[in-house]
């Protein structure tokens, strides 16, 4: 099938797929707007539950390949918030890269282990338990609890419990973000993405965005966001089917408009 401006179905599907993939990344880059109060209460609770001297949450900035401290609680002589570390380094980096938790102790014995960074914060932890914050399949951040108060290290049971805790925390972060920023983020993100990649221009979506999305209500946006997120989680085959259904609907809609406008009598 060829659409009125000469694009094939396949090209439209590719274009949409490209945008949806990029959107997943863009969606997470708006996390800085997540209310700090929520994150603060999460790390404070984590520190108490795991009897840790300190706790922190870092969020992933995938575009920059960095982890950024969003909230820190407890023993540190400097405000860590805003500090960024490369995503492919150290304990937190491993957790972000692998999506798996890890418990490490005797950290200070290793002369080169994150020491430069740890010393710059004025705080070299003795034991660390770090676990990923996962939304869907993506790692959106890392939660760490540092220095177990009554034991030399965090154990397997701590790891399991922090995992359950982190699941709830990630959900809370995600939902808070969705409700607060959904409309602006989606519109801004889609607009930005529709024009940002010269190799994959998205004239259709730009047009649709300009015409149709400005007046959309919150509920409609929420549904659309859910769908887009779902797209991001699909396997290639399922995604192809979904894109075909969408394309078919778009075609149907165009035809319907043409009928009602009397073009195709």
């Amino acid at each position, binding site marked *: 099938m060829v659409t009125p401006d000469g694009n094939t179905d396949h090209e439209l599907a590719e274009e949409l797929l490209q945008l949806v*993939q990029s959107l*997943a*990344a863009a969606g997470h880059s708006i996390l800085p707007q997540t209310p700090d109060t929520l994150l603060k209460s999460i790390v404070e609770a984590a520190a108490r539950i795991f009897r840790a001297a300190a706790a922190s949450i870092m969020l*992933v900035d*995938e575009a920059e*390949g960095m982890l950024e401290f969003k909230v820190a609680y407890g023993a540190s002589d400097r405000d860590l918030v805003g500090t960024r570390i*490369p*995503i*492919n*380094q*150290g*304990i937190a*980096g*491993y957790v*972000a*890269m*692998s*999506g*798996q*938790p*890890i*418990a*490490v*102790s*005797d*950290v200070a*014995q*290793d*002369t*080169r*282990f994150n020491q430069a960074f740890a010393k710059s914060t004025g705080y070299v932890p003795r034991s660390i338990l770090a676990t990923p914050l996962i939304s869907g*399949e*993506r*790692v959106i951040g890392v939660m760490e609890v540092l220095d177990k108060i009554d034991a030399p*290290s*965090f*154990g*397997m*049971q701590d*790891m*399991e*419990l922090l*995992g359950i805790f982190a699941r709830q925390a990630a959900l809370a972060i995600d939902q808070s973000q969705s409700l607060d920023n959904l409309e602006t983020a989606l519109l801004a993100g889609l607009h930005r993405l529709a024009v940002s990649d010269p190799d994959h221009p998205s004239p259709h979506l730009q047009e649709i965005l300009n015409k149709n999305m400005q007046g959309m209500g919150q509920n409609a946006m929420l549904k659309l966001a859910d769908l887009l997120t779902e797209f991001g*989680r*699909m*396997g290639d085959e*399922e995604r192809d089917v979904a894109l075909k259904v969408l394309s078919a609907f778009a075609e149907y809609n165009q035809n319907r408009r043409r009928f009602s406008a009397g073009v195709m009598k």
Partner: protein
Amino acid sequence: MTEASQVLPAYSQPFLQNAIRELTSSGPLTEITPEWAWGGSTGQGVKVAIVDTGVDYDHPAVGGQVYGGVNIEWDESYKEKLRFEQVDRPSDLAGHGTACAGIIHQIAPQAQIFSVRVLGTNMGGRAYQFAAGVDWAVQNGMDVVNLSLSTAKNDYFAMFHAITDEAYFKNIMLVSAASNFDEPSFPSLYSSVFSVASHAGKDPFTYYYNPTPPVEFGAPGIDLRVAWKGGGYVISTGNSFAAPHIAGIVTLIRAKHRELTPFQIKSVLWACAANVRKEAPAS
């Protein structure tokens, strides 16, 4: 709180001291002993791939036994979206891969270690990098592959199933750590791999067989001193470190008995597990 009442990771639960079930070996299987299975073996002639964050080739814990490897990156500008870079002197991004390699080297000091780096900054293609890493090991003549990583996403079930079956039929031993979370993860739950969770012991040759799979073996994984990035060591905990213990023993068996297939080596491991008691053959 007693140990039994503690909340422990589901996959390590069968390997708690008071949860380990005693099993009995009888008949000809009693003739399979650790001495027969791996006595005198050093892992010589066996190629072991560590699919992970990379391996520091010059870390003292790997004793100069790292023979190269590959870095696999997710790169949208490539046709297959995967970029392969052969490396003679591999390095580790975090320390995790070196920790696994160090454990294997400790058990099988003459095995040849290859670093297959599949983790990096781009998380969008993580499962595909991981799958490509396993595939690289299968296509490049590796005998044993340590997989201290997994994916929990159902979409990749079939992809990993196909790759691990291919390895199984090519007599390549894939040793896979169970998730540290209470959730199914792949490929650790396939029958074609050696799946491993943690017990609290420290002796590298003491492991248990779990008669209620999916996780079949329990090996040391708690509070272990492991090699880390930059030539140092840390104390760490996770099923990630249990898997290389089994990978190391599998490497020893493979070096001594080249003809054995994955299911035969599993049987040997079963016969030599610390909770399998040998009954004298009936006279």
